[in-house]
């Protein structure tokens, strides 16, 4: 068992020092993998993406409403803080959803060669 392995080691060591062989191997493995970046773009299921949209939207509304309610509590301005906070939370929720959609689109760029779909204006 140890003999054939030893022979391989020696034949490799004849050509170049082991450090070079290792970094060379690392380079070839990285090249074969296409070097990270896209490898990590894990395909998310549509359901989990939908859940993410809903979660971001709802969370912002809840936080906005809570901040408004807190303002009411300290300023005794009920119910205006809650009303305004709710509306601002709604706006923040839309911002959150647009951000998620943007990052999703950046991670999964649409196919530039896809046939264009005619819309009503055309």
């Amino acid at each position, binding site marked *: 068992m140890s003999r054939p392995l030893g022979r391989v080691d020696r034949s490799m060591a004849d050509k170049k020092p082991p450090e070079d062989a290792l970094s060379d191997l690392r380079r070839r493995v990285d090249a074969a993998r296409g070097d990270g970046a896209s490898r990590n773009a894990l395909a998310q299921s549509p359901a989990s993406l939908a859940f993410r949209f809903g979660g971001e939207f709802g969370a*912002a509304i809840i936080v906005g409403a809570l901040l408004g309610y807190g303002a009411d509590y300290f300023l005794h301005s009920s119910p205006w803080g809650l009303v305004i906070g709710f509306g*601002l*939370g709604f706006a923040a929720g839309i911002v959150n959803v647009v951000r998620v959609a943007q990052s999703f689109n950046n991670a999964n760029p649409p196919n530039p060669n896809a046939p264009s779909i005619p819309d009503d204006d055309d």
Partner: protein
Amino acid sequence: MSNDPIHQFHINPISEPIHFGALDATFTNASLFMVAGVGLAAGFMWWAMKPAAVVPGRAQVVAEGAYSFIHSMVKDAAGEEGVKRFFPFVFTLFLFIFAANMLGMFPYFFTPTSQIVITATMALMVFFTVIVVGVAKNGFKFLKLFVPSGVPWYILWFVVIIEIISFFSRPLSHAVRLWANVLAGHLVLKVFAGFVPMMAAAGGVFVLGSILPLGMTVALYALEFLVAFLQAYVFALLTCIYLNDALHPGH
């Protein structure tokens, strides 16, 4: 009782009551499975990396694969500086959530990530890390996170308010996503599994029909394994995205 789908989320003390002043630190089944999750993650990494061989064995390939998977994720989302500062934190979070989710897949086991207090604690940990590191590193420039550039002054105040609400909504959606996924998955699983004995007990043609919810339970179990991994991954990925804001607050 055993057919109650909520029963699996009950927290029961398993030690004598322990109190630190007003703090109830009694060791419960949730504590037990959190310790088990930590032990599983740490124990596996220690055992798998013990040989530290140049040509890795199977376990070492898994351990190194997990390491480089999270490493490249942190690098993509937060850059080299993010790796230097936050990689251990993100890797620990990922391993703990993944181990806790996977332990929860065993029947009769408790799933710590199905408790919002646990996911919220982790999300708030990330939230405060972002604030502390962001302020320590950037000082007042950290507030640029709330002030996007290129916005005319007459709507800027409105945008700033919305950005602040958006920032504070992060820990909520961060915590709720993991918690709700795990909770809903385990509930659905238990409900469908509960149909099997109910139909079998009804007798007659229902005994044959009980094969249907059984098949559904098996299929859902497979889905839950996917969710267990995916939610740990998503939690770690969002952690990276948020931590990136601490390092580079400008939009």
